[in-house]
């Protein structure tokens, strides 16, 4: 394929004190794929997400989205380049209802913020319902987000990201805190939604069963650098990966990461 990558980074660096959390990462994500980032705890996965979405500013290197340089843009500008994300620690607006949560994301993206005479409760209501329906949350629409059970909050988190109408979706551990038996169902839902909308997905996930079942491509990080990249099959076979990472899995309970 000669197609341009939809998202790529060039020699990306981020240090905290003396530790390089991300050390020269070159990443290239193809359009329409589900691309997983895996690696042991402290490998720099979440830092990489923070860099890609503008929550952290890289010390060096560049980030390109669809060929445009977005390095150093603040988060609220990055999302307008159609890159949306979720957070590892679920982060929704607890005092607003689920519907209002999604409405707000639509309002912010649709430029309603600076229209003081438009009543918020009438903004993008139908679109917000549609998104809640897609993540199967319509029955909880009028409950306050803070009162929702954890699994529903995870879905709302996803709904907030989808409401930003992304081309690229960054999911930071979408299944964390979800019971193992329910994970495939949630990921099937994710897969369905992103395929229907043609969204490119970047996924951080600790559950290897999830990763190997949904990912088209996998990048393995260790101590801030890429040690392998390829299809699930290639990554599984990579001796380096087996040494630093999967080796633990065969001994452990199928959930590595507790380095």
């Amino acid at each position, binding site marked *: 394929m000669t197609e341009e990558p939809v998202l790529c980074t060039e020699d990306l660096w981020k240090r905290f004190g003396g530790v390089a959390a991300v050390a020269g990462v070159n990443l290239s994500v193809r359009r329409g794929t589900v691309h997983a980032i895996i690696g042991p705890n402290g490998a720099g996965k979440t830092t990489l997400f923070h860099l890609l*979405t*503008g*929550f952290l500013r890289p010390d060096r290197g560049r980030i390109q989205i669809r060929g445009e340089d977005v390095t150093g843009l*603040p*988060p*609220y500008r990055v*999302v*307008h380049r159609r890159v*949306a*994300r979720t*957070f590892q620690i679920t*982060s*929704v*607006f*607890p*005092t*607003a*209802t689920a*519907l*209002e949560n999604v*409405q*707000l*994301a639509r*309002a*912010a*993206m649709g430029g*309603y*913020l*600076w*229209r*003081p*005479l*438009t*009543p*918020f*409760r*009438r*903004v993008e*209501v*139908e679109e917000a*319902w549609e998104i809640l329906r897609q993540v199967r949350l319509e029955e909880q629409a*009028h409950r*306050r987000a803070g009162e929702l059970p954890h699994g529903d909050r995870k879905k709302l988190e996803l709904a*907030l*990201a989808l*409401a*930003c109408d992304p081309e690229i979706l960054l999911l930071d551990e979408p299944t964390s805190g979800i019971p193992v038996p329910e994970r495939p169902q949630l990921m099937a839902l994710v897969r369905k939604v992103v395929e229907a909308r043609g969204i490119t997905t970047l996924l951080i996930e600790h559950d290897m069963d999830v990763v190997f079942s949904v990912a088209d491509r996998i990048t393995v990080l260790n101590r801030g650098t890429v040690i392998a990249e390829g299809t699930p099959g290639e990554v599984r076979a990579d001796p380096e990966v087996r040494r630093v990472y999967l080796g633990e899995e065969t001994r452990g309970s199928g959930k590595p990461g507790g380095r």
Partner: protein
Amino acid sequence: MWDARTLETARPRAREPVWVWLSLSAGLLVLPLVLPSPYVVQAVDILLAALLAASLNLLVGYGGLLSLGHAAFFGVGGYVAGILVKRVGLPWFATAGIGTAAAVLTAAVIGFFCVRLAGAYFVMLTLAFGQLLYTVFWKWKEVTGGDDGLTDVFPPVPWTDSTVYYYLVLVVVGLALWGLWRVCESPFGAALKAVRDSPHRAEAIGIPARRVQWAAFTLSGGLAGLAGSLFVFHHGSMFPKAAGWQSSAEAVLMAVLGGPDRFVGPLVGAVVIKTLAFLVPRATPYWQFFLGLVIVLAAFLAPRGLVELRVRRRRWG
């Protein structure tokens, strides 16, 4: 699949029924006809305090930003309007507008710095900037009159009558509060609350968090300035103390004791505190001490404000 209800978020929200607003408006309209004139003067003060408290609550309640320098913008509005009448001789209604604009500008500059900090740092910084402005009003004697105040800036004849002025203030404050309420109920208000609850999430869905807070700070300061510009022509004078930290703290108390989670909270707080401040000093010169006692009691008994007390009783009783 959808009924009409789904077109609104239809959450049971804490809103006053229409009859409350209607009877309140009717009451406010006939008030000066039944009250003796010293009380009408007092009523104007309460209206202006309500505007001050409600404007502050955009920051305290909706934004979660506890400002202790809010009265300084009240001071900017009042002093600029008064000084332009007294020293330049501009017509008073024009200077009231200029005073408000000056407050907007000042709030924009100060807010630019303040919204960079959160929590306790924001409190410290607003207090410090507020006292800086207070110092200017107090020390710049040639222009502001210093400790002796800026005096004798009454508007021309029909407006010196307290009943006439009452109606003017009622209309202006009513319009300002209506506008503020619309802003609070707009996507901007929702965004402001979102930034309060989860700033990172807000940024991630495309809300420029700091800019939203900055705009709220500017609007809030501007409305305080409007209250100040109306105040100076009401009393014909302006004193530094009205811009000092005590006045800011009083505005915070109105918002917090009234109930910052709802739009009416600060209005209720303004009525209660201004009435106390009017009545109690007649009984004792040490009324601040007793106000302090009341505040401590309120902090224990109604930490979410007086209006929430009422709601709770209605729901449970």
